[in-house]
């Protein structure tokens, strides 16, 4: 904690004497103080400018309300599931296309030379920019949303899979050769496992990209989903719904990220050690 400053172990006095200065140097105290000030400030502004900002308690009320009651025919959880469902489908398709493509590009120089320039052409375009084209082609239904999610999610997967193969220590291939392995053994024994951490990192980025993209797509046009909840809140001037929706969105994003981190520890335990 705050060890950047120490630069020297054991610098602080081991005798614990209470002092206000010491209190203000304690991170946890400051965190708590900061949060309290934040919510107090929020409450103050909300009470003064009621129209623009609901009180924190009102936000919680609205979230609870949405759990139990329906909005355009669905409860909060159903909307959440609608968004997540789109994310999972899009993510699954992106992974099914992206990993093989990225690996193939990593193995084969010709495939790489053909695919990479087209990839680079499309990369600078934010996936959400495709939405109009997607709606023109597929209408406002599920397909257009999943289409955009796939476009957004596929990019990190391909890049990371490709890099995963490219950055494998070439000496590892020497080991397999020395042990009597053939070309196929090289791929199975080295290429796949060695690139796994990078591929997984790509999946993490891709998933969080998918979550952002689905929200954007729902903001533009949807009848259900978390994006729908907040845009409807805007249309009905229900700020408590907007903020409540944002709150649920944030928690979901956080949980997705936490699950992926946990999975990484399980799938690539050796990578975590290297990070230390």
């Amino acid at each position, binding site marked *: 904690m705050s060890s950047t400053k120490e630069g020297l172990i054991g610098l602080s006095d081991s005798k614990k004497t209470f002092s206000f200065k010491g209190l203000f140097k304690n991170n946890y105290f400051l965190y708590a103080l900061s949060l309290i000030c934040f919510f107090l400030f929020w409450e103050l502004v909300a009470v003064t400018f009621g129209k623009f900002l609901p009180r924190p308690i009102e936000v919680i009320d609205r979230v609870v309300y949405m759990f139990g009651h329906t909005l355009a025919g669905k409860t909060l959880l159903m909307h959440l599931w609608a968004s997540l469902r789109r994310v999972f489908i899009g993510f699954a398709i992106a992974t099914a296309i992206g990993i093989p493509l990225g690996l193939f590009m990593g193995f084969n120089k010709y495939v790489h030379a053909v695919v990479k320039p087209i990839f680079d052409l499309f990369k600078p375009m934010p996936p959400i920019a495709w939405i109009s084209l997607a709606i023109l082609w597929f209408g406002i239904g599920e397909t257009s949303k999943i289409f955009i999610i796939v476009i957004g999610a596929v990019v990190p997967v391909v890049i990371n899979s490709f890099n995963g193969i490219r950055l494998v*220590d070439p*000496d*590892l291939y*020497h*080991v*397999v*050769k*020395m*042990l*009597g*392995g053939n070309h196929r*053994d090289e791929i199975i*024994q*080295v290429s796949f*496992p*060695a690139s*796994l951490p990078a591929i997984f990192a790509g999946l993490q980025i891709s998933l969080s990209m998918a979550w952002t993209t689905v929200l954007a797509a729902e903001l533009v046009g949807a009848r259900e989903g978390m994006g729908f909840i907040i845009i409807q809140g805007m249309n009905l001037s229900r700020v408590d719904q907007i903020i409540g929706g944002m709150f649920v969105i944030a928690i979901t994003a956080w949980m997705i990220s936490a699950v992926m981190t946990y999975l990484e520890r399980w799938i*690539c*335990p*050796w990578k975590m*050690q*290297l990070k230390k």
Partner: protein
Amino acid sequence: MENAVKEINNFKIECMGISKHFGEGNKKVDVLENIDLQVEENEFIVILGPGQSGKSTLLNIIAGLEMRTTGKVFLDGKEVTGSGPDRGLVFQKYMLFPWKTVFQNVELGLKLQGISKTKRREVAEHYIDLVGLKGYEKSYPHQLSGGMKQRVGIARAYANNPKVMLLDEPFGQLDAQTRYFMEEETERIWQQEKRTVIFVTNNIEEAIFLGDRVITLEGKLPGKMGAIYTVDLPRPRNYTDLDFLKLRSKITDATKLVL
């Protein structure tokens, strides 16, 4: 006819006129020049040279991981092409597979050869025990110290019953004390299961401690054959023995002259 051929090539390993260069034109780098080497069966040869003398390249050529520019390499009279488990290689950077346990790392070569599971278990466990890592079969490389990792590397190469063991500065990454320990371990392991060994190092003490013969490569690129010293001292050797120190002094002086 067969016997006659055997008479001429009765060395385990023979290198004739090995040269190697990288690059072309004005980017050409000569790494090795005219190396001739003969190694007898079960002999422990040390190739000694300072950094940048091409010794690792020479080992890679013998191992079949690199192609020589000119010359030939023979193993048991047959020319060497490509890599294989008959020449077990131990790398300086260990190069263990981090996603495999110690046991899985050691048994991999056998697995690739299609050997049955029970036989693999038997062999792998034997060699893990030989290098002194019994009980660590289920550990992962990241849980092991440098010295332990290298012992896994040795076991892994040994398990395939190689004709020759090739070690490329295997203790370069270890601290001084671990290094001494590993040198003694190497001596012990070799005494228990003798093989032909070619060991590359830049450490003169290490060379004298381990080698039957020490072949020096001269200091600057391209590496050329330097003096060959026969180490006549009884095994296991003693670093502070007078004869040991004399030889060490002799080699040190000779090396200084070139540098």
